[in-house]
């Protein structure tokens, strides 16, 4: 990987923002970080201590979007108009999730139109966030090279800029940069190791995962967890790999527009059929489903890795106290 030294992330950011819409995590004024459009180049880039409330998935898999319009006996495809954009400061976990969804939505024209127009600038974490366990989920702490175009690494005295794709190299044209010192890789590795140490052993995740795949968790344990599920869809909304959607028909001038909106497998009606048959009728079944999708061995085989990237957002958002750490702890208990 080509490596440069960088005096400030803002210099790179403002260079990239010249020809693209640029988004970065910014405080929303209510105590949370959200992905927001940069409209003032004087705005500093603040390294997030905690992940933004929502991951970057909505940039590609829109929370709500039109698929087609029906008008006068014709169906007209509505493929999004994608504008060049850059996501600046994506953590390793979120980039792994983007790579996971790239694969899942490989043939979805709506997702891919936006994805093709997007440059990804990763940001190594210098410290662990509160709930994160990316080191264990093989998605961090340092950004995986094949998941980004450019990677920023904050070291004690300086910033490193790593070129991770051809596109990443191209967009640097016109930006004067000095090569990084020879030992940059060692410094970066040492920092990543430190973050992994901060995250600790994460034994409950390992035990929970083993129990889930060892088929040793009985349905009563799941139903006990299900009692605490409010069916609020908080976890599925903030989860960077959740991808379920539902159709929605909307009347429009002279016709109907078929939209799709984020859905949640925790909703009672998710699998309800017209006949009344519901294979996921109980909350416990649905909670189990969610975690099986994240940690099940069959899914790992199918999609090349676990569906969980260890960002810990479900821990932060679940009002019932059944985020990943609590669930894994309970099902992993002997």
């Amino acid at each position, binding site marked *: 990987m080509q490596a440069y030294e960088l005096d400030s992330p803002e210099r790179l950011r403002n260079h990239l923002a010249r020809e693209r819409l640029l988004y970065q995590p910014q405080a929303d004024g209510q105590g949370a970080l959200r992905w927001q459009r940069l409209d003032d180049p004087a705005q500093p880039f603040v390294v997030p201590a905690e992940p933004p409330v929502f991951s970057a998935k909505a940039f590609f898999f829109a929370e709500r979007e039109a698929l087609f319009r029906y008008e006068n006996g014709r169906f007209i495809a509505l493929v999004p108009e994608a504008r060049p954009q850059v996501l600046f400061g994506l953590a390793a976990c979120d980039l792994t999730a983007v790579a996971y969804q790239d694969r899942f939505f490989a043939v979805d024209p*709506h997702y891919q139109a936006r994805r093709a127009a997007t440059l990804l600038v990763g940001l190594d974490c210098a410290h662990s966030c509160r709930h994160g366990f990316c080191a264990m989920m093989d998605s961090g702490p340092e950004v995986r090279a094949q998941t980004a175009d450019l990677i920023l690494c904050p070291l004690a005295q300086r910033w490193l800029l790593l070129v991770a794709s051809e596109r990443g190299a191209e967009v640097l044209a016109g930006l004067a940069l000095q090569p990084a010192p020879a030992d940059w890789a060692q410094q970066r590795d040492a920092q990543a190791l430190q973050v992994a140490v901060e995250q600790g052993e994460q034994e409950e995740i390992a035990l929970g995962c083993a129990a889930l795949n060892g088929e040793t968790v009985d349905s009563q344990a799941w139903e006990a967890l299900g009692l605490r599920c409010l069916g609020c869809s908080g976890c599925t909304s903030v989860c960077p790999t959740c991808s379920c959607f539902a159709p929605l028909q909307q009347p429009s001038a002279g016709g109907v527009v078929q939209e799709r909106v984020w*859905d949640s497998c925790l909703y009672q009606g998710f699998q309800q059929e017209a006949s*009344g048959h519901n294979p996921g009728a109980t909350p416990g079944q649905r909670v189990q489903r969610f975690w099986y999708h994240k940690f099940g061995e069959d899914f790992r085989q199918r999609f090349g890795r676990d569906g969980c990237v260890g960002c810990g957002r479900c821990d932060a958002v679940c009002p019932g106290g059944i985020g990943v750490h609590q669930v894994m702890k309970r099902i992993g208990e002997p």
Partner: protein
Amino acid sequence: MIDLTPRPLRLLEFYEDGEAARHFSFAVEPLAGEPAAQPGQFFMLAVPGVGEAAFTYVSPPDAEGRFSALIRRTGTLTAALFALAPGAVLGYRGPFGRGWPAAGPGERLLLVAGGCGLAPLAGVIDSAAGELQLIYAARNRAYQVLARERARWHERHALVETLDQGDDGRPQGHPLEALARVLDEDGLPAKVLCCGPEPLMLAVARGCIDHGLPASRIWLSLERRMHCGVGLCGHCYIGSSYACVDGPSYRYDEYLRLLAASGQAAATALPPQPC
């Protein structure tokens, strides 16, 4: 890339074919190079202003794109469909999913259907070259579907019909007894293909296994709520599989493996309404 936009489909005609069920003829503009629909596959039918739902073919699209489907009025989409007159424009996407396995040369098939579950098997019966037996279970005579097809099939194949409530109000045969009799008298078929309410299918599968038929020779067609038909929306899951792309036809041993790996038990309760 996949296309999530339907193609226009014309409702040509329909006739009543079982209680609250209609046999529809549709026509869709054929596409060059389009794969032919196989028995057991399905399509997504769009009713503009209402939505899309999955249905199986009774007869697959011919060279002119004409095909037929048996549809029972169950929810809002089918209610809207039943209010339409011939000539109405609908939408079509498909064919989707994995259909039934083909019968090998000289193989004898045993088909077991319950209620509307006869529809996905119609293509197998109509295209059968070899020997085929059929057990058809329905709640009562009014609920039986595909009357014209059954009349035709009776002439060529061994067809046993059972009714939970016969014309005199008493049961007329029983699908599991009929199954046991066929297996006892004629021996094990090469394959059993089964489609109906899930508890019936599971009981049939168990009955076959009790008679010594390996699970790998039993196939079930699983119904799940489907929205996209292309493995993306997530609704139709069965364990780690998606019924719209990995099914709806599942080999019974594979189905059991999927359920066990995902920690789910097979459905045993009957649905509140017959299929």
